[in-house]
Each structure stands twice: as structure tokens, then as C-alpha cells.
């Protein structure tokens, strides 16, 4: 590669990006706005939670707990029953959100050596809301337990949890990795596709192709500045998630950034490919949306868990880069795992990057027209 020529080209790209203030502002603010919007949308304050109580032997402890639920003004008891068989129909009809099932003689267990047991069943057909229900319920029980403990000795209430309709426990935290995937695809694939097809539309690409610059140098020159922009976006998204929503970060930041670069390369290559195959900016933009944004948002597990997709759709998710990146990002951020666990996903992304880059460069051969 001719480094001087490449540098001249990258400088030009930098000017394009920096001078288009409006687009740049949007691109830089996007992760911030999205983290905040998604964050609040997903954490929507849940009120009027319909509670079903199963209490075989009502005593002072269970009644006290029930009243605590009511006094939060979030819970409303829709039914109290002595037998658990009422719960299933309630959930099926969607008339209850949470069921609290006390074991018999709850109060006496509280005083005894064995822990007192209560089962929390949650309607988690919407996993995020379900998590919120669960957290509220646990908090109330925990505070009751703490108060009793302070008085004399340690009281143990063991909660057992059932997430109904969606046993995989999704948490609010899960959205940040997905969001990074979405923002990266937006910045890299969409913007590269637009910027490259603009050159095509305006005829400047023709002049570049006649110059000694090789097609691969044009692609690298196009892609490098967006890689930097994408990098800034990852950092913004992480900072916003940490500062506003206290999303934990358990793993290696460096590893996540490296994986982000890999994923960005995949997205950039997709953008180049889209630009190569479309003939106008508008077509490039719409195609990029269609082939990158939508699948990456809908088929990646970001919003809808892959596990709950119909069987025929699951294999389709394998070709969606974000699906792999989200597993990686969640693993690093939330579980704190490293490459020893995530090497397969990383390998898939690396393979995708190589394949797409090769195809993108091929489709950019000047003689193809």
C-alpha cells in the first residue's frame, strides 16, 4: 500500500466527516440519546402490579407481608387463595403479574431453625417488565426479613423464583450490549454506504478509480475514519450506561473494545458492499437499513431473545453479526468472561469480517461496471 496516498485520502475523509456538522452531531449524540431513551423505556416505572397470593395457613407473618405489598402502592392483590391451583388460570388469562406462594406454617418457620420459604412466580412474557416485577417483590420481602432480623436474631426467608413464559432471566442491563451493536452498525454500515455511494453518484469515485489508488486503498481510506468514530461511540455508550444506569462492567474493557473493532469491521464491510451494489445514495441508505439495521436490531437477541424465536427463524440469526457480538459483549460486561469462553463467537465474527471484506473489495473492482 502507498501510505502517502492513503494518508491523503484519509485526511480528505476526515474533512468530509468533520465538516458535516449536523451529521456528526447526530452520530456523536446517538449513543447517549439511545442509552437514555432505551434505558428509561425499558425501566418504565411499573405500577399497579396485580398480585395473586397463595397462603395455605394465613398467620401474622403472611398478613403482615401482604399488607406491605399493598402499602407500596405498586401492588394490588387480585386474589388470595389457600391452594396454588388458581395461579395457572390467572397467568393464562393475563389477570395476574406476580404470584406469591407461601409454604404452610410460614410464621412458625420464621421462628424455627429452617428457613421460611416463599415462591415468587412472575409473568415474564415481557422479560424486562418481568424482571422489574421480580426485583420489587424481592425488595419488599428482603426489607421485611431485615426488620425482623434486627429485633432479635437472623431470620431467613428463602425465595424461589419462577419466570413464567420466559424462563431465561433477562435484565435491564442486557440492553446496553445490544445498543452498542446497534449504534456501531448504524455509524459504520450506514454511514460508509452513504459516503461511498455519494462518491459514486457525484462521479468522484470514477476519478479515484482512474488514479493510482487501488480499490482496496479506497476502501481502507473510507473505513478508517469511521472506525475511529465508532470507537468513540462505544466509549460514549459505555460511559452513559455506567453513569446513568449503573450498568455493571465486570470484564475487560480492552477486550470489549477489541471485539467492537472486529464487529465494526464487519459492519463497515457490509456498508461497502451495499454501496457497491446500489446506484444511488437513497438506495444505498434504504438497503443499508434493510440489511444491517433491521436484522441487527430484531434478529440479534437485542430486543427479542433468540431463545424465544420460532425454530425456523433461529438459523437465520446465525448470519446476523450482531447476534454474535451481543453474546460477546454481554459475556464480557455482565458475566466478566474472556476469550476462553467467547472464542467461538469471536471466530465467527473474524470469519465474517474476512469474508465480507474480500467480497466488498471484489465488488469494488473498477471494471465491474
Amino acid at each position, binding site marked *: 500500500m*502507498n501510505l*502517502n*496516498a492513503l*494518508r*491523503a*485520502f484519509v*485526511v*480528505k475523509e476526515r*474533512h*468530509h466527516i468533520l*465538516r*458535516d456538522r449536523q451529521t456528526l452531531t447526530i452520530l456523536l449524540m446517538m449513543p447517549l440519546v439511545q442509552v437514555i431513551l432505551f434505558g428509561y423505556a425499558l425501566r418504565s416505572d411499573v405500577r399497579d402490579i396485580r398480585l395473586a397470593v397463595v397462603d395455605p395457613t394465613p398467620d401474622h407473618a403472611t398478613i403482615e407481608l401482604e399488607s406491605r405489598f399493598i402499602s407500596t402502592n405498586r401492588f394490588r392483590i387480585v386474589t388470595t387463595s389457600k391452594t396454588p391451583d388458581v395461579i395457572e388460570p390467572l397467568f393464562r388469562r393475563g389477570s395476574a403479574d406476580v404470584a406469591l406462594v407461601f409454604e404452610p406454617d410460614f410464621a412458625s418457620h420464621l421462628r424455627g431453625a429452617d428457613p421460611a420459604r416463599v415462591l415468587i412466580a412472575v409473568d415474564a412474557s415481557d422479560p424486562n417488565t418481568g424482571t422489574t416485577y421480580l426485583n420489587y417483590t424481592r425488595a419488599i420481602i428482603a426489607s421485611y426479613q431485615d426488620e425482623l432480623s434486627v429485633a432479635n436474631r437472623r431470620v431467613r426467608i428463602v425465595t424461589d423464583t419462577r419466570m413464567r413464559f420466559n424462563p431465561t432471566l433477562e435484565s435491564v442491563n442486557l440492553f446496553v450490549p445490544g445498543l452498542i451493536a446497534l449504534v456501531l452498525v448504524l455509524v459504520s454500515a450506514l454511514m460508509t454506504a452513504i459516503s461511498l455511494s455519494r462518491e459514486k453518484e*457525484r*462521479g*468522484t469515485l*470514477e*476519478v*479515484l*478509480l*482512474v*488514479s*493510482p*489508488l487501488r480499490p482496496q486503498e479506497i476502501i481502507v481510506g473510507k473505513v478508517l475514519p469511521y472506525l475511529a468514530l465508532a470507537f468513540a461511540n462505544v466509549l460514549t455508550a459505555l460511559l452513559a450506561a455506567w453513569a446513568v444506569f449503573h450498568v455493571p462492567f465486570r470484564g475487560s474493557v480492552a477486550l470489549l473494545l477489541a471485539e467492537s473493532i472486529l464487529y465494526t469491521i464487519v459492519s463497515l464491510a457490509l456498508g461497502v458492499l451495499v454501496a457497491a451494489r446500489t446506484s444511488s445514495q437513497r438506495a444505498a441508505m434504504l438497503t443499508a437499513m434493510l440489511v444491517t439495521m433491521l436484522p441487527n436490531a430484531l434478529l440479534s437477541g437485542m430486543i427479542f431473545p433468540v431463545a424465544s424465536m420460532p425454530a425456523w427463524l433461529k438459523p437465520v440469526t446465525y448470519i446476523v453479526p450482531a447476534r454474535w457480538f451481543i453474546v460477546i459483549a454481554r459475556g464480557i460486561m455482565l458475566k466478566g468472561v474472556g476469550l476462553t469462553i467467547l472464542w467461538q463467537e469471536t471466530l465467527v465474527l473474524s470469519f465474517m469480517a474476512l469474508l465480507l471484506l474480500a467480497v466488498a473489495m471484489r465488488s469494488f473492482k*473498477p*471494471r465491474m*461496471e
Partner: protein
Amino acid sequence: MSAANRVAVAVKTGAADGFAIDARELTRRFGSFVAVDHITFDIKAGEVFGFLGANGAGKTTAIKMLVGLLAPSEGAAHVAGFDIRTQRDQIRRNIGYMSQRFSLYGDLTVRENIRLYGGIYGLTPEQIAERTTTMLDTLGLSSNADDLVARLPLGWKQKLAFSVALVHQPKIVFLDEPTGGVDPITRRQFWELIYSAAARGTTVFVTTHYMDEAEYCDRISIMVDGKIAALGTPVELKEKFGADSVDDVFVRLARGSPKGAAA
């Protein structure tokens, strides 16, 4: 300066000896449509060669083959002594190209555009600085060096685009309808730039459909339906066809074509 003198200058400055461009039976098909149909011509170094034809006659397709944007279906051609099929890299370093569409970047300044193309063509920063100064002086753009190109009037943009296409001092420059949409005075100035480039030994290959511009060329060819229907100096062609102007020659040739008659 006469054409003969310019050729002499070209030889002295060491432009490719023999022909700057030669094409033999060059052909390009798109499916069953023959866009360029076995064209053959030679262009001497330092010549201003007018490549004329109605819209759709195949001019742009021919140029694209010569500059390496399109592979020929048949035939052969050499540009600056290099084979257009196998030596595209060498060709690229030796030619300048100004496409039909405006090829500078509007969101870069005049200076940045020059630096970009200088850089792409492998000039050193010193060479770029020196040529930028000369170019801006020649064009009278020194005080606009840091203006965005988008803000320049069209005529200035075209002249700048031409000079930028020459920034690496190529042996041959291809101009695809460089004066489209430009006022007569600017066209005149543009041709002065073309002449001074030719005087420095640059071979100029220019397409146009302004027939008055054809009179400025050393030699012209007229393409009709993918074939070269006439080739020679403007004077020769006018004599041969008994016409008063190149415009007349053109109309007579084009009328023979089904497409030309419809146009």
C-alpha cells in the same frame, strides 16, 4: 503555436515517443449492443485530439476503456505506451482524467483538493506546496485558496478541476466534456488552459459536443453509432465533406445514422 510546434516541444520534453495513444479495432459490447465498434486511431504525443460524437455515440465508453474503467470486449489499445489490458497501473500513473461530472470535493477547500490529488498521485509535500502556488497563481485563485470549492462559481470550478487533473504532470490528459454548462468566456479561458498544457507537451484527449471547440483541436474524430465516421484535421474534414464548418460535417455524418436522425 501551431500543432507541429507543439509536437516538437512534446518530443523535446520527453513525452512518449511514437504515439501517445493507439487503438486497434477497439470494441465494447453490452450484451448484444455494440457501444464501441472496432475503432482504430493514433494520437501523437502533444496533440490536442477532439473526440466528437452525438450523445450515445460511444465516446464515454471509449474513454472508459482507455483510462481502465472498462475492459474492452475486443481489440487492443496502448496509452502512453502501455497496454490497456495488462498495464493499467502504469497507465494510471501517466494519465490525468476529468470526468463528465465535476470531480472535486465541494466540502474541501481549493488547497485541500489540490493536496488530496497530489497525495494520491504520490507527489511529495514540497512538490504539492510548490505546484499549489503555481496553480493558484495561474488560475488567479490565490486569494480563494482556503475557500470551500462548493462556493466557487462553476467556471472556476471547471478550470480548477482541469488543473488538478494535471497536478501530477501526466503525459496524457483525458477530458470528458469538460466545458458542459460553462459560459462562452469561461470556455475560451478553458481552451487557453488546454493549449498551454499541450504546449508543455501534454497530450490532450477531449470529448465535446460544442462544434466550435472542435475547430481548436489539432485533429478530430467523429463517432457515429460506435464507429469512427471521420478522422483528420478540421481543415481536411471540411474539405473532404465540402462543408463550411465542423458543425456541418457533423450534421451530415450524424444524419446518416438512425439515432442521429431521430435526435
